[in-house]
């Protein structure tokens, strides 16, 4: 771990890395500034911008493969230079950033394409694409920055875009509230990240990745712990991890392409990126890693349990996102080679989750925006393509061999069993249990939607398959859901270990169970969970809520986490706000208003001196001249000096 991190200068083609951020940004600016004039062609500009970014990203990727030092830096200009503190406006293109760029632009391009059709009946389609491009630009900045301030810049940018897109349909109160909730909960995490960056300023005097990573060794254990916990808080906020998970399911109020791109495939994985990127910090403290692993394990179970009790197709998918990111946190928390495993799972998840969200969108498109899975059923006959592509996503997420989830999730479960003490049983067990639960609730979702008897509302006569512009992205993503896992798991770990600073050494511990046993076990629980769900729901379900036991009721209410938030944060927060408002009105405002009145009054009186007569102006100049002369002479005589 004592190797130093060094970045090479970007040369040649790679000098154009900034274009990745600039192109979507310019496109967003054009769409926003031109207003209605761009309504007719704006969406195509948006698609083209992301397509161009993808092509560029690919060419940069191939360029990078040919290089010796695979971490190239590009300093654009001095962003902040205050005293000892210097922050570059600089970009870093290395294997880790490269895979993120390809994920963001590749999946992003498909979802943009899908959205052209999905949003075609919406009057605000141009605005939607402007925000969407803005998001991609910010997300690319987030993964391409070469220091924490750049990362924070992108971090806030994606937060803004996410807020704008969740509450895109501003006329719906639920969308507005969900946007606000996402924004506020993210602020909690963002505050953690910001303070973390301040601590870097204070203790290391820099925020450049290479300098921070090389300097971490000199910090005390406590400092590293605090720093890491703050970064973790930021990561948890963005990625919907415990205890800041409550906003993510509500964020499904936004249009479905938003849920697919931002709240499944890319933005919510920014937390995983942050921890992977900062791995020299996290690897430096084993307590820190334990906390990350615990957060991951806890969240993945919470997500599974709640997901099993929900009836809204998008919310189930959202909770499954929470749960899958839990796996990724588990992976990055384990450290060592497991970092790469988490990133592989992140990429594979990007494909199959985007696939399923778009599939859900396609179902809603055909079912007049119905989202209740109790009101679906039998759709496999009517929406063949959606059914088949969704099936690929479903098989991928439950980790069925040979779909991509198997290759990406199973190694994480194995890695969890490889810890050197009793926690191997704890975390390995949780991961295994999660796999079974995932199979259960995802199968429930799949069966209730596409199979069993029809339980549609009366106004739906004949659900139709979505147009080509929507099904083509679905098919491409389905191909990714099938094949991506195997391809990624064989190539990406090697590729990622060439990232400067990303710890590559293997954990030397033997797993507490043999590899084959774990694989068999995880396949077994998957089949069990899926089989149970198929057996229970093959004949459909009641269309009204049924009385349920303690656990299901709790799960339906998000395990009472919302209630806890309300009691612990919201109520005291409201009380504190009221108290402060009172104090502000009485104390601060009194002072401020008094001062303002004094300034205003003084201004009014002084104004009267501005008479408009040259004679009085000349007099005041003369008086001023006498004063200045007197002052100069007084200074000279030593009265003032």
């Amino acid at each position, binding site marked *: 771990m004592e190797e130093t991190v060094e970045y090479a200068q970007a040369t040649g083609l790679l000098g154009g890395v900034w274009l990745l951020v600039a192109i979507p940004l310019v496109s967003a600016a054009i769409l926003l500034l031109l207003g209605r004039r761009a309504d007719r062609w704006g969406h195509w500009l948006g698609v083209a911008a992301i397509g161009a970014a993808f092509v560029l990203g690919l060419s940069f990727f191939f360029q990078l493969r040919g290089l010796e030092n695979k971490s190239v830096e590009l300093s654009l200009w001095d962003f902040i230079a205050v005293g000892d503190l210097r922050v570059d406006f600089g970009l870093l293109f290395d294997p880790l950033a490269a895979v993120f760029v390809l994920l963001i632009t590749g999946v992003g391009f498909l979802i943009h394409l899908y959205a052209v059709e999905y949003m075609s009946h919406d009057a605000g389609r141009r605005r939607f694409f402007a925000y969407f491009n803005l998001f991609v630009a910010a997300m690319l900045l987030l993964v391409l920055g070469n220091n924490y301030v750049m990362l924070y810049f992108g971090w806030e940018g994606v937060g803004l875009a996410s807020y704008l897109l969740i509450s895109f349909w501003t006329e719906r109160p639920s969308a507005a509230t969900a946007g606000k909730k996402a924004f506020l909960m993210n602020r909690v995490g963002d505050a953690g990240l910001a303070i973390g960056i301040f601590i870097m300023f204070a203790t290391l005097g820099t925020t450049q990745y290479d300098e921070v990573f090389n300097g971490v060794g000199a910090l005390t254990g406590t400092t590293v712990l605090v720093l890491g916990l703050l970064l973790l808080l930021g990561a948890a906020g963005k990625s919907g991890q415990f205890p800041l998970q409550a906003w993510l399911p509500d964020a499904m109020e936004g249009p479905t392409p938003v849920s697919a791109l931002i709240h499944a495939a890319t933005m919510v994985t920014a937390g995983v990126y942050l921890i992977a990127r900062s791995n020299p910090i996290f690897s430096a403290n084993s307590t820190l890693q334990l906390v990350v692993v615990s957060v991951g394990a806890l969240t993945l179970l919470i997500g599974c349990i709640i997901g099993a009790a929900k009836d809204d197709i998008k919310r189930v998918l959202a909770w499954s996102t929470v749960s899958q990111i839990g796996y990724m946190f588990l992976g990055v928390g384990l450290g060592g080679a497991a970092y790469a495993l988490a990133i592989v799972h992140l990429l594979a998840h990007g494909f199959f989750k985007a696939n399923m969200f778009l599939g859900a969108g396609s179902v809603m498109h055909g079912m007049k925006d119905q989202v209740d899975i109790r009101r679906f059923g039998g759709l496999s006959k009517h929406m063949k393509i959606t059914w088949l592509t969704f099936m690929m996503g479903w098989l991928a997420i439950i980790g069925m061999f040979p779909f991509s989830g198997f290759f990406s999730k199973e190694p994480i479960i194995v890695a969890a069993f490889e810890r050197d003490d009793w926690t191997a049983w704890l975390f390995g067990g949780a991961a295994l249990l999660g796999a079974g639960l995932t199979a259960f609730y995802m199968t429930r979702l799949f069966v209730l939607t596409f199979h069993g008897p029809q339980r549609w509302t009366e106004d739906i006569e004949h659900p139709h398959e979505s147009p080509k512009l929507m099904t083509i992205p679905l098919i491409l993503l389905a191909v990714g859901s099938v094949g991506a896992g195997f391809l990624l798991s064989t190539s990406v770990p090697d590729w990622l270990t060439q990232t400067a600073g990303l710890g590559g050494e293997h954990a030397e511990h033997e797993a507490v169970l043999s590899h084959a046993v774990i694989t068999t076990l995880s396949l077994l629980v998957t089949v069990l969970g899926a089989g149970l769900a198929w057996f229970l729901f093959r004949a459909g379900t009641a269309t009204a809520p049924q009385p349920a036991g303690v656990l299901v009721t709790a799960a339906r209410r998000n395990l009472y986490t919302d209630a806890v938030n309300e009691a612990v944060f919201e109520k005291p927060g409201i009380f504190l706000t009221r108290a402060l408002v009172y104090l502000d009105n009485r104390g601060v405002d009194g002072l401020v208003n008094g001062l303002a009145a004094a300034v205003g009054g003084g201004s009014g009186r002084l*104004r009267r001196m501005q008479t408009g007569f040259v004679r009085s102006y000349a007099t005041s100049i003369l008086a001023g*001249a006498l004063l200045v002369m007197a002052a100069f002479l007084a200074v000279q005589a030593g009265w003032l000096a």
Partner: protein
Amino acid sequence: MTELKLPSIEYAAIAPILIMLGAALFGVLVEALVPRRWRHLVQLTLALLAVLAALTMVVLSADERIITVGQALAIDGPTLFLQGAILVLAAMALLLIGDRSVERGGAFVAQAAVTAESADDRRQAEGRNGLTEVYPLTTFAIGGMLIFVAANDLLTMFIALEVFSLPLYLLCALARRRRLLSQEAAMKYFLLGAYASAFFLFGVALIYGFTAGIPGRSAGVDFATIHAAVSESPASPVLLFAGMALLAIGLLFKAAAAPFHVWTPDVYQGAPTPVTGFMAACTKVAAFGALLRVFQVAFADANWDFTPVLGAVAVLTMLVGAVLAVTQTDIKRLLAYSSIANAGYLLVGVLAPSRDGLAGTMFYLVAYGFSVLAAFAVVTLVRDDDGEATHLSRWAGLGRRSPFFAALFTFILLAFAGIPLTSGFTSKFAIFGPALEGGQAWLVIAGVLTSMILAFPYLRVVVMMWLSEPGESTPTVTVPGGLTAAALMIGVLATLVLGVAPAPLLDLATGAAEFVR
């Protein structure tokens, strides 16, 4: 009889000055010889080409550090930087002056001698083409400013002062509409300007007397001589300090510092708006260029003596500008008081006796020039049938009517208020930082407090534009012609770029921030 010795002249180094003055003279010929139809186009092209040529010469002689034409002109880093700044800002101002589509026939009166409010006046206001004499006048003024920032002795400085002031007095009188207000403004500016010039000249005389009183030295008013005289133990310091005070008054008048600012609101309001923009940007650069040179070259060693007095003037200027801006109801007067307050901030920079302080002041001048020209460009656009609608109540709800221009103006106001990511923030930072390091914390505190007061009038305009309902009398924004649009966009973009990436220009200023003696 001794032979007359001619001073050596570096023609390449003073080429920008020669080009501008030559273009002005040529412009007078154009006025006489070119048919009326073509004059506007020829004059505008001539003026812009001259500015461009002069700017090219400035860039080409960027490394020049000499004193030439005897001891009269110093071509050094600050001179070249400020000359470049004046030329760039003047080019923007010329774009505003040359625009004839926002107001039919241009912002200038068709016939200067027409009686105000008469039938003739009404007819000329209806769209006859404006005077083209404005171009030679502007070109003369620019030439004078170029000499002013280069002047290395007090007499040259005085002549340059007059060369650029006289055309400005005339320009102020040439507004197409509200002729009386415009003529009144010109008259006031002229009378008070002449008055201030007298102070300056008297100061020159006293300083000459002071240098003559040093035994064993030749008397003179070039800065090297004054500097040498000040650094020796002065024989008659009363002459020195009285002279210094009078000089300061003459220069502070042009810089619009309190209590010598009284002309500013009236003149800014009455003058044609493009000319107001020109004065607010270029005159400020010229005046502070001269102040910097006089106090940091000639009187550098009397630093401890003038700093408290000029500091007091700076605080007073900031206070007067900020406090009076609070109750203004006319946008041009509001901007005038804001310009006064900015003069106070610039004085803080003048009093930071370090390379960074000088660089910061020069940076501030450029950044402020861009923003203020953009602001006045927007003012020319907000109009109704009677010309510009400058009363603030008329701006209510402008954000609804013309969101794009209201947004641009909001951005400029935020820049004036010193919000980060605008040049207003970086330039204040560039001035307050060195002042703090130079031990002038009290000036910085005053600067920050008055900035807070100033934020109120700026934000009040923002609130009016966006949060008020548009009234019956809210004018719409005229879609600008190409020239005004170009000037506006340059100003806004510069405000943004200098706010996000100030380093290149700051580095340039720091590289240039050394006077030659």
